[in-house]
Protein backbone atom coordinates (compact mmCIF):
# COMPACT_ATOMS: atom_id res chain seq x y z
CA UNK A 1 0.00 0.00 0.00
CA UNK A 2 2.78 2.36 1.03
CA UNK A 3 4.71 1.61 -2.16
CA UNK A 4 1.64 2.33 -4.19
CA UNK A 5 1.15 5.71 -2.54
CA UNK A 6 4.82 6.56 -3.06
CA UNK A 7 4.61 5.68 -6.75
CA UNK A 8 1.52 7.78 -7.20
CA UNK A 9 3.17 10.65 -5.39
CA UNK A 10 6.18 10.42 -7.71
CA UNK A 11 3.88 10.35 -10.70
CA UNK A 12 2.07 13.43 -9.47
CA UNK A 13 5.39 15.22 -8.99
CA UNK A 14 6.48 14.41 -12.50
CA UNK A 15 3.11 15.53 -13.82
CA UNK A 16 3.25 18.78 -11.85
CA UNK A 17 6.80 19.42 -13.07
CA UNK A 18 5.71 18.79 -16.63
CA UNK A 19 2.83 21.22 -16.31
CA UNK A 20 5.10 23.82 -14.77
CA UNK A 21 7.64 23.43 -17.56
CA UNK A 22 4.84 23.81 -20.09
CA UNK A 23 3.86 27.05 -18.39
CA UNK A 24 7.46 28.27 -18.52
CA UNK A 25 7.70 27.35 -22.22
CA UNK A 26 4.43 29.14 -23.00
CA UNK A 27 5.63 32.27 -21.18
CA UNK A 28 8.94 32.11 -23.00
CA UNK A 29 7.04 31.97 -26.26
CA UNK A 30 5.23 35.12 -25.27
CA UNK A 31 8.40 36.86 -24.21
CA UNK A 32 10.71 35.93 -27.08
CA UNK A 33 8.77 34.20 -29.77
CA UNK A 34 5.85 36.53 -30.33
CA UNK A 35 7.69 39.81 -30.88
CA UNK A 36 9.76 38.14 -33.60
CA UNK A 37 6.66 36.93 -35.32
CA UNK A 38 4.94 40.27 -34.90
CA UNK A 39 7.92 42.11 -36.34
CA UNK A 40 8.05 39.78 -39.30
CA UNK A 41 4.34 40.15 -39.97
CA UNK A 42 4.51 43.96 -39.53
CA UNK A 43 7.26 44.21 -42.13
CA UNK A 44 5.60 41.71 -44.43
CA UNK A 45 2.28 43.54 -44.32
CA UNK A 46 3.86 46.95 -44.99
CA UNK A 47 2.75 48.55 -48.22
CA UNK A 48 5.15 48.97 -51.13
CA UNK A 49 6.42 52.31 -52.52
CA UNK A 50 5.99 52.39 -56.27
CA UNK A 51 7.12 54.92 -58.90
CA UNK A 52 4.73 56.18 -61.57
CA UNK A 53 6.27 53.83 -64.16
CA UNK A 54 5.62 50.81 -61.97
CA UNK A 55 9.14 50.36 -60.64
CA UNK A 56 9.07 49.18 -57.04
CA UNK A 57 11.19 51.41 -54.84
CA UNK A 58 10.46 49.65 -51.54
CA UNK A 59 8.75 46.37 -50.75
CA UNK A 60 8.70 43.57 -48.18
CA UNK A 61 10.01 40.09 -48.97
CA UNK A 62 10.25 37.28 -46.41
CA UNK A 63 9.68 39.66 -43.53
CA UNK A 64 12.44 42.03 -44.67
CA UNK A 65 12.16 45.53 -46.11
CA UNK A 66 14.08 45.74 -49.36
CA UNK A 67 14.71 48.49 -51.90
CA UNK A 68 15.07 46.80 -55.30
CA UNK A 69 16.17 49.93 -57.15
CA UNK A 70 19.12 50.42 -54.82
CA UNK A 71 20.23 54.01 -54.63
CA UNK A 72 17.60 55.39 -57.04
CA UNK A 73 15.73 58.05 -55.09
CA UNK A 74 17.36 56.68 -51.95
CA UNK A 75 17.15 59.86 -49.89
CA UNK A 76 13.57 60.40 -50.97
CA UNK A 77 12.40 56.90 -50.09
CA UNK A 78 14.33 56.84 -46.81
CA UNK A 79 14.58 53.66 -44.81
CA UNK A 80 12.83 51.52 -42.23
CA UNK A 81 14.03 50.56 -38.76
CA UNK A 82 12.78 47.54 -36.81
CA UNK A 83 9.08 48.21 -37.17
CA UNK A 84 8.72 51.82 -38.30
CA UNK A 85 10.04 54.13 -41.00
CA UNK A 86 13.01 56.20 -39.88
CA UNK A 87 13.52 58.72 -42.67
CA UNK A 88 12.14 59.89 -45.98
CA UNK A 89 8.81 58.63 -47.25
CA UNK A 90 9.13 55.53 -45.08
CA UNK A 91 8.87 57.80 -42.04
CA UNK A 92 6.51 60.42 -43.49
CA UNK A 93 3.96 57.85 -44.66
CA UNK A 94 4.62 55.34 -41.89
CA UNK A 95 0.93 55.16 -40.94
CA UNK A 96 -0.55 54.30 -44.34
CA UNK A 97 2.38 52.02 -45.19
CA UNK A 98 2.00 50.14 -41.90
CA UNK A 99 -1.68 49.69 -42.71
CA UNK A 100 -0.63 47.88 -45.89
CA UNK A 101 -1.50 50.70 -48.27
CA UNK A 102 0.78 51.10 -51.29
CA UNK A 103 2.33 54.51 -51.90
CA UNK A 104 2.34 55.58 -55.52
CA UNK A 105 4.77 58.34 -56.38
CA UNK A 106 4.86 60.72 -59.32
CA UNK A 107 8.55 59.88 -59.87
CA UNK A 108 9.70 58.62 -63.24
CA UNK A 109 12.65 56.34 -62.57
CA UNK A 110 14.12 57.00 -66.02
CA UNK A 111 14.27 60.73 -65.35
CA UNK A 112 15.42 60.08 -61.80
CA UNK A 113 18.24 57.83 -63.04
CA UNK A 114 19.17 60.43 -65.61
CA UNK A 115 19.33 63.20 -62.99
CA UNK A 116 21.39 61.04 -60.65
CA UNK A 117 23.75 60.02 -63.43
CA UNK A 118 24.25 63.65 -64.49
CA UNK A 119 25.07 64.64 -60.91
CA UNK A 120 27.31 61.62 -60.40
CA UNK A 121 29.29 62.58 -63.48
CA UNK A 122 29.58 66.33 -62.91
CA UNK A 123 29.91 66.79 -59.15
CA UNK A 124 33.07 64.69 -58.64
CA UNK A 125 34.61 66.13 -61.81
CA UNK A 126 34.23 69.64 -60.41
CA UNK A 127 35.15 68.51 -56.90
CA UNK A 128 31.81 69.55 -55.49
CA UNK A 129 30.57 68.53 -52.06
CA UNK A 130 27.04 67.64 -52.97
CA UNK A 131 24.42 68.39 -55.58
CA UNK A 132 20.68 68.28 -56.04
CA UNK A 133 18.28 68.22 -58.96
CA UNK A 134 14.50 68.55 -59.09
CA UNK A 135 12.55 67.86 -62.26
CA UNK A 136 8.87 68.85 -62.47
CA UNK A 137 6.19 68.11 -65.01
CA UNK A 138 5.22 71.63 -66.01
CA UNK A 139 1.44 71.47 -66.32
CA UNK A 140 0.78 69.31 -63.27
CA UNK A 141 3.64 70.07 -60.89
CA UNK A 142 4.32 66.34 -60.53
CA UNK A 143 7.85 65.69 -59.30
CA UNK A 144 9.48 63.50 -61.96
CA UNK A 145 12.84 63.40 -60.21
CA UNK A 146 14.35 64.59 -56.96
CA UNK A 147 17.99 63.57 -56.93
CA UNK A 148 20.69 64.12 -54.37
CA UNK A 149 24.39 63.40 -54.77
CA UNK A 150 26.27 61.58 -53.13
CA UNK A 151 23.93 58.62 -53.59
CA UNK A 152 22.38 56.68 -50.74
CA UNK A 153 21.34 53.02 -50.81
CA UNK A 154 18.66 52.35 -48.18
CA UNK A 155 19.37 48.59 -48.31
CA UNK A 156 22.57 49.23 -46.37
CA UNK A 157 21.61 52.49 -44.67
CA UNK A 158 23.82 51.97 -41.65
CA UNK A 159 26.89 52.48 -43.83
CA UNK A 160 25.94 56.10 -44.56
CA UNK A 161 26.22 59.15 -42.37
CA UNK A 162 23.36 61.47 -41.53
CA UNK A 163 24.41 64.08 -44.12
CA UNK A 164 24.32 61.59 -47.00
CA UNK A 165 20.89 60.31 -45.93
CA UNK A 166 19.39 63.80 -46.02
CA UNK A 167 16.96 64.56 -48.83
CA UNK A 168 18.81 67.77 -49.67
CA UNK A 169 16.67 68.63 -52.67
CA UNK A 170 13.74 69.28 -50.31
CA UNK A 171 15.36 70.45 -47.09
CA UNK A 172 18.65 72.23 -47.86
CA UNK A 173 18.44 76.00 -48.28
CA UNK A 174 20.80 78.02 -50.44
CA UNK A 175 20.83 81.43 -52.06
CA UNK A 176 19.45 80.94 -55.57
CA UNK A 177 21.64 83.71 -56.99
CA UNK A 178 21.11 85.06 -60.48
CA UNK A 179 18.38 82.54 -61.36
CA UNK A 180 16.02 84.85 -59.46
CA UNK A 181 16.66 87.61 -62.01
CA UNK A 182 14.33 85.95 -64.50
CA UNK A 183 11.55 85.81 -61.91
CA UNK A 184 12.03 89.44 -60.86
CA UNK A 185 12.13 90.62 -64.48
CA UNK A 186 8.84 88.79 -65.10
CA UNK A 187 7.33 90.45 -62.03
CA UNK A 188 8.59 93.88 -63.14
CA UNK A 189 7.17 93.36 -66.63
CA UNK A 190 3.89 92.25 -65.07
CA UNK A 191 3.80 95.54 -63.15
CA UNK A 192 4.65 97.50 -66.28
CA UNK A 193 7.98 98.65 -64.83
CA UNK A 194 10.08 97.37 -67.69
CA UNK A 195 9.97 95.77 -71.13
CA UNK A 196 12.46 93.47 -72.86
CA UNK A 197 13.66 96.43 -74.92
CA UNK A 198 14.02 98.98 -72.12
CA UNK A 199 17.66 100.09 -72.04
CA UNK A 200 19.61 100.91 -68.85
CA UNK A 201 23.03 102.37 -68.17
CA UNK A 202 25.04 99.49 -66.87
CA UNK A 203 28.54 100.25 -65.61
CA UNK A 204 30.35 97.26 -64.13
CA UNK A 205 29.91 98.66 -60.60
CA UNK A 206 27.26 100.76 -58.97
CA UNK A 207 26.65 102.14 -55.50
CA UNK A 208 23.13 101.30 -54.30
CA UNK A 209 21.23 102.14 -51.15
CA UNK A 210 22.09 105.70 -50.18
CA UNK A 211 23.57 106.21 -46.72
CA UNK A 212 23.43 102.53 -45.70
CA UNK A 213 24.19 101.31 -49.17
CA UNK A 214 26.91 99.27 -50.73
CA UNK A 215 28.60 98.83 -54.09
CA UNK A 216 27.36 96.02 -56.24
CA UNK A 217 29.29 94.72 -59.20
CA UNK A 218 29.05 92.45 -62.22
CA UNK A 219 31.22 89.48 -63.09
CA UNK A 220 30.62 88.99 -66.80
CA UNK A 221 32.02 91.86 -68.93
CA UNK A 222 29.23 93.58 -70.84
CA UNK A 223 28.43 96.77 -72.81
CA UNK A 224 27.89 99.98 -70.84
CA UNK A 225 24.20 99.94 -71.61
CA UNK A 226 21.97 96.90 -71.70
CA UNK A 227 18.36 96.18 -72.46
CA UNK A 228 16.40 94.00 -70.04
CA UNK A 229 17.07 91.12 -72.39
CA UNK A 230 20.81 91.94 -72.25
CA UNK A 231 20.67 92.15 -68.44
CA UNK A 232 19.52 88.54 -68.33
CA UNK A 233 21.91 87.53 -71.08
CA UNK A 234 24.95 89.00 -69.23
CA UNK A 235 23.45 88.33 -65.81
CA UNK A 236 24.06 91.93 -64.78
CA UNK A 237 23.51 92.73 -61.10
CA UNK A 238 23.87 96.44 -61.87
CA UNK A 239 21.20 96.13 -64.53
CA UNK A 240 18.86 94.39 -62.10
CA UNK A 241 19.33 97.20 -59.59
CA UNK A 242 17.98 99.52 -62.31
CA UNK A 243 15.07 97.23 -63.19
CA UNK A 244 13.79 97.15 -59.59
CA UNK A 245 14.59 100.79 -58.81
CA UNK A 246 10.91 101.76 -58.94
CA UNK A 247 9.50 98.45 -57.79
CA UNK A 248 7.55 98.99 -54.52
CA UNK A 249 9.29 96.85 -51.90
CA UNK A 250 6.08 95.38 -50.53
CA UNK A 251 4.96 94.44 -54.03
CA UNK A 252 8.27 92.86 -54.99
CA UNK A 253 8.38 90.86 -51.78
CA UNK A 254 4.82 89.75 -52.40
CA UNK A 255 5.81 88.54 -55.89
CA UNK A 256 8.68 86.53 -54.46
CA UNK A 257 6.29 84.99 -51.96
CA UNK A 258 3.83 84.21 -54.71
CA UNK A 259 6.62 82.39 -56.52
CA UNK A 260 6.87 80.25 -53.37
CA UNK A 261 9.93 81.73 -51.66
CA UNK A 262 9.89 82.07 -47.89
CA UNK A 263 6.80 79.92 -47.42
CA UNK A 264 6.00 76.27 -46.90
CA UNK A 265 5.70 74.11 -49.97
CA UNK A 266 2.19 72.70 -50.02
CA UNK A 267 3.27 69.09 -49.95
CA UNK A 268 1.40 67.29 -47.17
CA UNK A 269 3.32 65.14 -44.68
CA UNK A 270 6.66 65.28 -46.53
CA UNK A 271 9.34 67.32 -44.73
CA UNK A 272 10.42 70.33 -46.76
CA UNK A 273 12.18 73.57 -45.87
CA UNK A 274 10.57 76.93 -46.53
CA UNK A 275 13.69 79.01 -47.14
CA UNK A 276 13.97 82.60 -46.03
CA UNK A 277 12.67 85.88 -47.28
CA UNK A 278 13.58 88.91 -45.24
CA UNK A 279 10.68 90.45 -43.32
CA UNK A 280 9.32 93.61 -44.89
CA UNK A 281 10.49 95.99 -42.12
CA UNK A 282 14.07 95.03 -42.91
CA UNK A 283 13.72 95.83 -46.58
CA UNK A 284 15.52 98.84 -47.95
CA UNK A 285 16.93 99.80 -51.33
CA UNK A 286 19.97 97.58 -50.89
CA UNK A 287 17.87 94.55 -49.83
CA UNK A 288 15.59 95.14 -52.81
CA UNK A 289 18.55 95.27 -55.18
CA UNK A 290 20.30 92.23 -53.72
CA UNK A 291 17.05 90.24 -53.66
CA UNK A 292 16.65 91.09 -57.34
CA UNK A 293 19.77 89.08 -58.09
CA UNK A 294 19.13 86.34 -55.56
CA UNK A 295 21.22 87.40 -52.60
CA UNK A 296 19.69 87.69 -49.15
CA UNK A 297 16.96 85.16 -49.87
CA UNK A 298 17.22 81.41 -49.65
CA UNK A 299 15.30 78.54 -51.09
CA UNK A 300 15.43 74.82 -51.65
CA UNK A 301 15.98 73.26 -55.07
CA UNK A 302 12.33 72.20 -54.95
CA UNK A 303 11.18 75.81 -54.39
CA UNK A 304 13.41 77.09 -57.18
CA UNK A 305 12.01 74.49 -59.57
CA UNK A 306 8.44 75.39 -58.57
CA UNK A 307 9.16 79.11 -59.04
CA UNK A 308 10.58 78.57 -62.54
CA UNK A 309 7.70 76.26 -63.29
CA UNK A 310 5.47 79.32 -62.86
CA UNK A 311 7.11 80.91 -65.91
CA UNK A 312 6.91 77.63 -67.80
CA UNK A 313 3.26 77.19 -66.85
CA UNK A 314 2.08 80.50 -68.34
CA UNK A 315 2.35 82.40 -65.07
CA UNK A 316 0.42 79.91 -62.93
CA UNK A 317 2.17 78.71 -59.79
CA UNK A 318 1.35 75.09 -59.08
CA UNK A 319 2.69 73.47 -55.95
CA UNK A 320 4.86 70.40 -56.55
CA UNK A 321 3.42 67.03 -55.63
CA UNK A 322 5.22 63.77 -55.09
CA UNK A 323 2.54 61.33 -53.98
CA UNK A 324 -0.35 60.55 -56.29
CA UNK A 325 -3.65 61.52 -54.75
CA UNK A 326 -2.08 63.24 -51.74
CA UNK A 327 -4.04 66.45 -52.36
CA UNK A 328 -3.13 69.89 -51.07
CA UNK A 329 -2.25 71.23 -54.52
CA UNK A 330 -2.05 75.03 -54.63
CA UNK A 331 -2.61 77.01 -57.82
CA UNK A 332 -2.39 80.75 -58.26
CA UNK A 333 -1.65 83.18 -61.03
CA UNK A 334 1.54 85.09 -60.35
CA UNK A 335 2.14 86.80 -63.69
CA UNK A 336 0.02 87.14 -66.79
CA UNK A 337 0.39 84.42 -69.46
CA UNK A 338 1.81 86.82 -72.05
CA UNK A 339 4.41 88.07 -69.54
CA UNK A 340 5.41 84.46 -68.82
CA UNK A 341 5.73 83.81 -72.55
CA UNK A 342 7.88 86.90 -73.04
CA UNK A 343 10.14 85.87 -70.16
CA UNK A 344 10.48 82.40 -71.66
CA UNK A 345 11.64 83.99 -74.89
CA UNK A 346 14.22 86.03 -72.96
CA UNK A 347 15.44 82.91 -71.20
CA UNK A 348 15.72 81.08 -74.49
CA UNK A 349 17.99 83.90 -75.67
CA UNK A 350 20.11 83.45 -72.54
CA UNK A 351 20.96 79.96 -73.77
CA UNK A 352 21.11 80.53 -77.51
CA UNK A 353 23.25 83.67 -77.26
CA UNK A 354 25.01 83.19 -73.94
CA UNK A 355 25.73 79.52 -73.31
CA UNK A 356 24.67 77.57 -76.42
CA UNK A 357 27.20 74.80 -75.95
CA UNK A 358 26.95 74.52 -72.18
CA UNK A 359 23.16 74.41 -71.89
CA UNK A 360 21.81 74.21 -75.42
CA UNK A 361 21.02 71.19 -77.57
CA UNK A 362 21.12 71.59 -81.32
CA UNK A 363 17.66 71.56 -82.79
CA UNK A 364 15.82 72.03 -79.51
CA UNK A 365 14.60 75.16 -77.79
CA UNK A 366 15.75 75.16 -74.20
CA UNK A 367 15.36 78.11 -71.84
CA UNK A 368 16.94 78.83 -68.50
CA UNK A 369 19.07 81.01 -66.27
CA UNK A 370 22.37 80.39 -64.55
CA UNK A 371 23.31 81.43 -61.05
CA UNK A 372 26.54 81.45 -59.08
CA UNK A 373 25.71 82.23 -55.49
CA UNK A 374 28.05 83.06 -52.69
CA UNK A 375 27.61 81.01 -49.56
CA UNK A 376 27.65 82.18 -45.99
CA UNK A 377 30.48 80.81 -43.88
CA UNK A 378 30.50 79.94 -40.19
CA UNK A 379 31.13 83.58 -39.23
CA UNK A 380 28.05 84.72 -41.08
CA UNK A 381 30.00 86.38 -43.90
CA UNK A 382 29.96 85.64 -47.58
CA UNK A 383 32.71 83.20 -48.40
CA UNK A 384 35.15 84.12 -51.14
CA UNK A 385 35.91 80.51 -51.97
CA UNK A 386 32.72 78.47 -51.56
CA UNK A 387 29.99 78.93 -54.17
CA UNK A 388 26.75 77.31 -55.15
CA UNK A 389 26.44 76.62 -58.84
CA UNK A 390 22.79 76.93 -59.85
CA UNK A 391 20.69 76.57 -62.98
CA UNK A 392 16.94 76.60 -63.55
CA UNK A 393 15.23 76.12 -66.85
CA UNK A 394 12.61 74.32 -68.92
CA UNK A 395 11.90 72.95 -72.36
CA UNK A 396 10.60 73.12 -75.02
CA UNK A 397 10.79 76.90 -74.57
CA UNK A 398 7.66 77.76 -76.54
CA UNK A 399 5.47 75.24 -74.74
CA UNK A 400 7.34 73.74 -71.78
CA UNK A 401 6.64 70.25 -70.59
CA UNK A 402 9.46 69.85 -68.07
CA UNK A 403 11.09 72.23 -65.59
CA UNK A 404 14.49 71.50 -64.06
CA UNK A 405 16.42 73.08 -61.20
CA UNK A 406 20.04 72.15 -60.45
CA UNK A 407 22.30 73.09 -57.56
CA UNK A 408 25.86 71.97 -56.81
CA UNK A 409 27.51 73.09 -53.60
CA UNK A 410 31.13 74.01 -53.05
CA UNK A 411 32.65 72.95 -56.35
CA UNK A 412 36.32 73.84 -56.59
CA UNK A 413 36.84 73.54 -60.33
CA UNK A 414 34.79 75.64 -62.77
CA UNK A 415 32.09 76.38 -60.25
CA UNK A 416 30.11 78.97 -62.21
CA UNK A 417 26.52 78.14 -62.99
CA UNK A 418 27.24 78.13 -66.70
CA UNK A 419 30.19 75.77 -66.27
CA UNK A 420 28.72 73.23 -63.90
CA UNK A 421 24.96 73.42 -63.30
CA UNK A 422 24.07 74.30 -66.89
CA UNK A 423 25.73 71.19 -68.39
CA UNK A 424 23.86 69.06 -65.84
CA UNK A 425 20.62 70.67 -67.04
CA UNK A 426 21.66 69.96 -70.62
CA UNK A 427 22.47 66.33 -69.84
CA UNK A 428 19.10 65.67 -68.23
CA UNK A 429 17.26 67.56 -70.98
CA UNK A 430 19.02 65.47 -73.64
CA UNK A 431 17.96 62.27 -71.90
CA UNK A 432 14.35 63.37 -71.54
CA UNK A 433 14.11 64.66 -75.12
CA UNK A 434 15.68 61.46 -76.42
CA UNK A 435 13.17 59.48 -74.38
CA UNK A 436 10.39 61.39 -76.10
CA UNK A 437 12.14 60.96 -79.48
CA UNK A 438 11.19 64.57 -80.04
CA UNK A 439 12.02 65.70 -83.57
CA UNK A 440 14.47 68.61 -83.71
CA UNK A 441 13.36 71.92 -85.18
CA UNK A 442 15.03 73.03 -88.39
CA UNK A 443 14.62 76.74 -87.54
CA UNK A 444 16.97 76.60 -84.60
CA UNK A 445 19.68 74.58 -86.41
Amino acid at each position, binding site marked *: MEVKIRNRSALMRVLALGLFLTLVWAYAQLEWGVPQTVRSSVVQARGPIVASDG*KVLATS*VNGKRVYPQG*SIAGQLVGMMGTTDGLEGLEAAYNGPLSAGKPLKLTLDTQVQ*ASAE*AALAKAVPEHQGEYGTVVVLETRTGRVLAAATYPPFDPNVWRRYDQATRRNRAFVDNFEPGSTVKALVVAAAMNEGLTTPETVYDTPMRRFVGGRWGSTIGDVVPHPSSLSTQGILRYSSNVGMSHVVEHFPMESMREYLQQYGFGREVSMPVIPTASGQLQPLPRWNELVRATNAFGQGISSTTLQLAAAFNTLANDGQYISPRLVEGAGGVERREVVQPEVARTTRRLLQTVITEGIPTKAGIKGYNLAGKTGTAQTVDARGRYSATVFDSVFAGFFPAESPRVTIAVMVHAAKVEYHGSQLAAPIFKEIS*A*DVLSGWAAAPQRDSD
Partner: protein
Amino acid sequence: MRPSLHRARPNREGHPDGPRSGPLFGSLRRAWPPTLAVDTSLPTWRGRAVRYVAIYLLMVVTLVIVRGATQHIRPDLRAAQVREAELTTQRDTLVLELQALENPQRLRSWAFANGMRRFTDADKVTQAIPPVPSVPAPVVPEHNLEVRTQWR
Protein backbone atom coordinates in the same frame (compact mmCIF):
# COMPACT_ATOMS: atom_id res chain seq x y z
CA MET B 1 -37.42 -7.81 -23.53
CA ARG B 2 -41.02 -7.31 -22.77
CA PRO B 3 -41.91 -5.41 -19.63
CA SER B 4 -44.60 -6.95 -17.57
CA LEU B 5 -46.77 -4.30 -15.98
CA HIS B 6 -48.49 -6.62 -13.55
CA ARG B 7 -45.56 -8.08 -11.77
CA ALA B 8 -45.58 -7.33 -8.06
CA ARG B 9 -42.45 -5.91 -6.47
CA PRO B 10 -41.23 -7.96 -3.54
CA ASN B 11 -41.41 -6.22 -0.18
CA ARG B 12 -38.59 -6.03 2.33
CA GLU B 13 -39.13 -9.47 3.57
CA GLY B 14 -38.99 -10.82 0.10
CA HIS B 15 -42.56 -11.83 0.02
CA PRO B 16 -45.00 -10.52 -2.40
CA ASP B 17 -47.47 -10.11 0.37
CA GLY B 18 -46.00 -8.70 3.57
CA PRO B 19 -47.64 -7.53 6.78
CA ARG B 20 -49.19 -4.71 4.76
CA SER B 21 -50.37 -6.95 2.12
CA GLY B 22 -54.02 -6.61 2.73
CA PRO B 23 -56.44 -6.46 -0.13
CA LEU B 24 -56.26 -2.66 -0.22
CA PHE B 25 -52.44 -2.40 -0.08
CA GLY B 26 -52.05 -5.19 -2.56
CA SER B 27 -54.19 -3.47 -5.13
CA LEU B 28 -52.38 -0.13 -4.59
CA ARG B 29 -48.95 -1.72 -4.94
CA ARG B 30 -49.92 -3.29 -8.18
CA ALA B 31 -51.28 -0.05 -9.59
CA TRP B 32 -48.77 2.49 -8.22
CA PRO B 33 -45.95 3.16 -9.07
CA PRO B 34 -45.93 1.58 -12.52
CA THR B 35 -42.89 -0.62 -12.96
CA LEU B 36 -40.97 -1.80 -16.03
CA ALA B 37 -39.87 -5.33 -16.09
CA VAL B 38 -36.54 -5.64 -18.00
CA ASP B 39 -35.71 -8.75 -19.80
CA THR B 40 -32.38 -9.66 -18.32
CA SER B 41 -32.23 -13.14 -19.46
CA LEU B 42 -28.90 -14.52 -20.62
CA PRO B 43 -29.82 -15.06 -24.26
CA THR B 44 -31.06 -11.47 -24.49
CA TRP B 45 -27.84 -10.09 -22.99
CA ARG B 46 -25.71 -12.31 -25.13
CA GLY B 47 -27.48 -11.25 -28.29
CA ARG B 48 -27.24 -7.64 -27.31
CA ALA B 49 -23.51 -7.91 -26.52
CA VAL B 50 -22.81 -9.64 -29.77
CA ARG B 51 -24.65 -6.95 -31.71
CA TYR B 52 -22.86 -4.14 -29.94
CA VAL B 53 -19.46 -5.73 -30.35
CA ALA B 54 -20.21 -6.39 -34.01
CA ILE B 55 -21.21 -2.77 -34.55
CA TYR B 56 -18.17 -1.60 -32.66
CA LEU B 57 -15.88 -3.84 -34.67
CA LEU B 58 -17.52 -2.67 -37.87
CA MET B 59 -16.93 0.94 -36.90
CA VAL B 60 -13.36 0.18 -35.92
CA VAL B 61 -12.72 -1.60 -39.18
CA THR B 62 -14.37 1.24 -41.10
CA LEU B 63 -12.33 3.83 -39.28
CA VAL B 64 -9.12 1.90 -39.75
CA ILE B 65 -9.83 1.48 -43.45
CA VAL B 66 -10.69 5.17 -43.87
CA ARG B 67 -7.65 6.18 -41.86
CA GLY B 68 -5.51 3.82 -43.87
CA ALA B 69 -6.89 5.11 -47.11
CA THR B 70 -6.43 8.77 -46.18
CA GLN B 71 -3.20 8.60 -44.22
CA HIS B 72 -1.22 10.24 -47.05
CA ILE B 73 -3.47 13.33 -47.17
CA ARG B 74 -2.03 15.08 -44.13
CA PRO B 75 1.65 14.63 -45.09
CA ASP B 76 0.79 15.56 -48.66
CA LEU B 77 -0.97 18.70 -47.45
CA ARG B 78 1.99 19.63 -45.28
CA ALA B 79 4.38 19.04 -48.15
CA ALA B 80 2.17 21.16 -50.40
CA GLN B 81 2.15 23.95 -47.84
CA VAL B 82 5.92 23.84 -47.57
CA ARG B 83 6.20 23.81 -51.37
CA GLU B 84 3.78 26.72 -51.67
CA ALA B 85 5.83 28.70 -49.17
CA GLU B 86 9.01 27.85 -51.09
CA LEU B 87 7.47 28.86 -54.40
CA THR B 88 6.12 32.09 -52.96
CA THR B 89 9.57 32.92 -51.64
CA GLN B 90 11.09 31.98 -54.97
CA ARG B 91 8.61 34.17 -56.84
CA ASP B 92 9.24 37.12 -54.53
CA THR B 93 12.98 36.69 -54.92
CA LEU B 94 12.70 36.48 -58.71
CA VAL B 95 10.49 39.59 -58.84
CA LEU B 96 13.03 41.35 -56.68
CA GLU B 97 15.92 40.22 -58.88
CA LEU B 98 14.04 41.33 -61.97
CA GLN B 99 13.39 44.72 -60.41
CA ALA B 100 17.04 45.03 -59.52
CA LEU B 101 18.15 43.95 -63.01
CA GLU B 102 15.74 46.43 -64.59
CA ASN B 103 17.32 49.25 -62.61
CA PRO B 104 17.35 52.23 -65.02
CA GLN B 105 20.80 53.34 -63.80
CA ARG B 106 22.21 49.93 -64.65
CA LEU B 107 20.52 49.78 -68.06
CA ARG B 108 21.66 53.30 -68.86
CA SER B 109 25.28 52.58 -67.96
CA TRP B 110 25.21 49.35 -69.96
CA ALA B 111 23.70 51.06 -72.99
CA PHE B 112 26.27 53.86 -73.00
CA ALA B 113 29.08 51.35 -72.46
CA ASN B 114 27.83 49.48 -75.51
CA GLY B 115 27.85 52.48 -77.78
CA MET B 116 24.35 53.88 -77.35
CA ARG B 117 23.95 57.43 -78.59
CA ARG B 118 21.17 59.66 -77.47
CA PHE B 119 18.62 60.62 -80.06
CA THR B 120 19.40 64.28 -79.44
CA ASP B 121 23.12 63.69 -79.98
CA ALA B 122 22.74 61.58 -83.08
CA ASP B 123 23.30 63.17 -86.49
CA LYS B 124 20.08 63.72 -88.29
CA VAL B 125 19.70 63.98 -92.02
CA THR B 126 16.73 65.45 -93.74
CA GLN B 127 15.38 64.52 -97.08
CA ALA B 128 12.63 66.07 -99.10
CA ILE B 129 9.65 63.83 -99.51
CA PRO B 130 9.34 63.04 -103.25
CA PRO B 131 6.11 64.12 -104.84
CA VAL B 132 3.45 61.52 -105.28
CA PRO B 133 3.78 59.98 -108.79
CA SER B 134 0.93 61.05 -110.97
CA VAL B 135 -1.57 58.30 -111.36
CA PRO B 136 -3.89 58.41 -114.35
CA ALA B 137 -7.41 59.16 -113.34
CA PRO B 138 -9.41 55.96 -113.07
CA VAL B 139 -11.66 55.33 -115.98
CA VAL B 140 -15.21 55.42 -114.83
CA PRO B 141 -17.29 53.11 -117.01
CA GLU B 142 -20.32 54.77 -118.43
CA HIS B 143 -23.21 53.27 -116.73
CA ASN B 144 -26.53 54.93 -117.09
CA LEU B 145 -29.19 54.03 -114.70
CA GLU B 146 -32.71 54.64 -115.79
CA VAL B 147 -35.38 54.96 -113.18
CA ARG B 148 -38.95 54.90 -114.18
CA THR B 149 -41.42 56.10 -111.59
CA GLN B 150 -44.97 55.17 -111.86
CA TRP B 151 -47.37 57.12 -109.76
CA ARG B 152 -50.47 55.46 -108.61
